[in-house]
């Protein structure tokens, strides 16, 4: 119970770096902490860095999706960054493709995605503009 995943405030975003193996209790605690932090800080974006995460199960996958959904309801965008290839394959095989979840390759790109959500959205809507 002593373990805790730190949530750092970075401008108007929250940065969560998962550096330890996620077990179920820790995941539940992270969900609580993050929602509380969102409420008090009024952050507009959450960046979850899972580059150190090597093992996922369906519960952790679902929890990550759940965290993103809660954040969205609270008015913040969540970007999941740094997923390992093996983890991505596992999640897809588990049938958790996390549709609607924003993802990025690393923290740097994740930050960029958070900063320019409108432009990204626009390009998604009109990707086919003539060159």
């Amino acid at each position, binding site marked *: 119970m002593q373990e805790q995943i730190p949530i750092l405030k970075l401008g108007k975003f929250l940065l969560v770096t998962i550096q330890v193996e996620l077990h179920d209790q820790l995941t539940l605690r992270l969900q609580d902490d993050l929602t509380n932090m969102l409420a008090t800080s009024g952050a507009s974006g959450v960046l979850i860095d899972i580059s150190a995460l090597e093992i996922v199960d369906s519960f952790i996958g679902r929890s990550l999706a759940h965290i993103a959904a809660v954040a969205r309801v609270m008015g913040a965008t969540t970007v999941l960054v740094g*997923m390992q*290839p093996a983890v991505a*394959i596992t999640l897809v095989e588990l049938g958790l493709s*996390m549709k609607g979840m924003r993802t*990025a*390759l690393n923290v740097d790109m994740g930050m960029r995605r958070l900063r320019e959500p409108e432009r990204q959205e626009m390009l998604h809507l009109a*990707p086919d*503009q003539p060159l």
Partner: protein
Amino acid sequence: MAAIAGIGTLLKENEPSILREWVDLQLADGSRRALLSEAEVNEQSRAFLASLSGAWQKNNDDAMSGNDWDDVRASLSELSKNRAHAGFSPSETATFVFSLKGAMFAALRRAHATDAKRLNADILLASEVLDKLGLVTVEAHQRGREQVILRQQHELLELSTPVIKLWDGIVAVPLIGTLDSERTQVVMEGLLEAIVSKEATIAIIDITGVPTVDTLVAQHLLKTVAAARLMGADCIISGIRPQIAQTIVHLGVDLGDVATKSSLADALKMALAKRGLRIGAATAAA
């Protein structure tokens, strides 16, 4: 047991004549002549016969144990494997050992012309040993062929899944051949590794070389797309031929919101546009 020692000595003494007869017997079976020259047959037979008679002289138990017999088996395995790689059939390979029987029995008959009991015992023992060696040949041949198949399978998997960097942050996988689950796995792993190492944000999957797209293949494609998206890369599927487009619609396959293009060039254009880039003429129009 003394009988086997007798065979060993007999082999040694009659080596030249047995070898000649044996080689003649092998060459009489004309099917192999195209693949193996007479000199090669001669050399291989001579080496094998020398090690066989040596082993037989030293270790005279019919269990064929000991270093010398191991050497005989090893050299025979090597020979059989090489023949398997060269395209010999199992029976052609096994004939190498089995044709020795005729030559050996003839020598035994000459040596024990007066002692029928001894002749009988020796022939039985020699036959037993040669049969065992024959089994070694067949097994080695089989192993050799399996190695070839495994290597080819591996090469096929590697060959068919290159990941190409098209531009900064844009990678492409041209898929060629049928997509089964094993290949999808390899493609997926290769693509995801490339996305990480090349820091790609857009991946183009080109299916020009995929002959047919059924629901299973579509599912495999969607899995790859979903995995790439989890890594933070958007996917574009390109190379959709008219027939394939018709099949996809006909089967009711839902490609979701995955962008699709008919050619790789269109996909590249789209990818560049997503990254805010464009290709223009090098010189201004006059």
